[in-house]
């Protein structure tokens, strides 16, 4: 079976871990628990008539004290770049991470994920950073790990991009 490593990238507290937990375990918690280093999960899915095993690297979030180290990206086939549109600072982090990926390993397919769609009334969507990222993403998707909306579709969309590349 085809097996591909993908990474969850984004600023701290955007919901990367919540999205993975919802996808892999179908659970959600309101409590924020910060990720140290990386947590790795695996899920098998069927896409375009092919079975694909996704090895999901849930990488610690960017913050003012630490940046993502390129070693965590090694061997990655694609990534989910997660932002929290209620926090503008997460857009800048996303741009920085996208640049890091590009400089470390060249262009890789990614989905720009606007999480917390359950808080859409608080979103800020008019930002030039995010518009530029949208243009280069394989797809732009809105998700809510809390309400379990768009989560499966997000992983399936990236899986399709990886299968097509293969």
């Amino acid at each position, binding site marked *: 079976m085809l097996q591909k*490593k993908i990474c969850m990238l984004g600023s*701290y*507290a955007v919901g990367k871990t919540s999205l993975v937990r919802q996808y892999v375990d179908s659970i959600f918690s309101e409590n924020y628990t*910060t990720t*140290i280093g*990386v947590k*790795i999960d695996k899920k098998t899915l069927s896409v375009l008539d092919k079975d694909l095993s996704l090895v999901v690297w849930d990488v610690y979030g960017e913050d*003012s004290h630490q940046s993502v180290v390129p070693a965590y990206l*090694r*061997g990655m086939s694609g990534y989910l770049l997660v932002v929290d549109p209620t926090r503008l600072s997460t857009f800048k982090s996303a741009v920085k991470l996208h640049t890091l990926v590009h400089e470390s390993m060249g262009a890789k397919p990614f989905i720009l994920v606007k999480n917390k769609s359950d808080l859409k009334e608080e979103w800020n969507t008019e930002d030039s950073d995010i518009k530029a990222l949208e243009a280069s993403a394989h797809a732009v998707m809105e998700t809510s790990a809390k309400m379990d909306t768009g989560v499966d579709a997000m992983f399936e969309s990236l899986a399709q991009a990886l299968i097509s590349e293969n």
Partner: protein
Amino acid sequence: MAYFCLNHDGCVDLCGGDLTQCGVGLLDNTKPVDEQLVWLTGLLPTEDKPVVITNTQVSSSLYIDLHLFTDTDVQWVVLFDNTEAAVRLQIAQQERLSNDIVAERSSCSN
């Protein structure tokens, strides 16, 4: 600490140390090791440059540091149990980031 070295097919040639403590069960030396240890997917071979990946959470209670390097054409994988330090880091980081979120929300509402 645990280690294994791999042959050209990516299968285990030699292993030692406390593999169980580092989250590694019995390894089948007829299959590539990255098919048996999901966290090695995409990482091997390392070729010229060593790779260090810290704080890899391999279970709910175990964090390991991965050191991957080649030495005279032999691929080595060395694992260190880093759980104690990772848990301390988690506690400190949790407090710092929780405070950062509160500060961020306060500055937005002002």
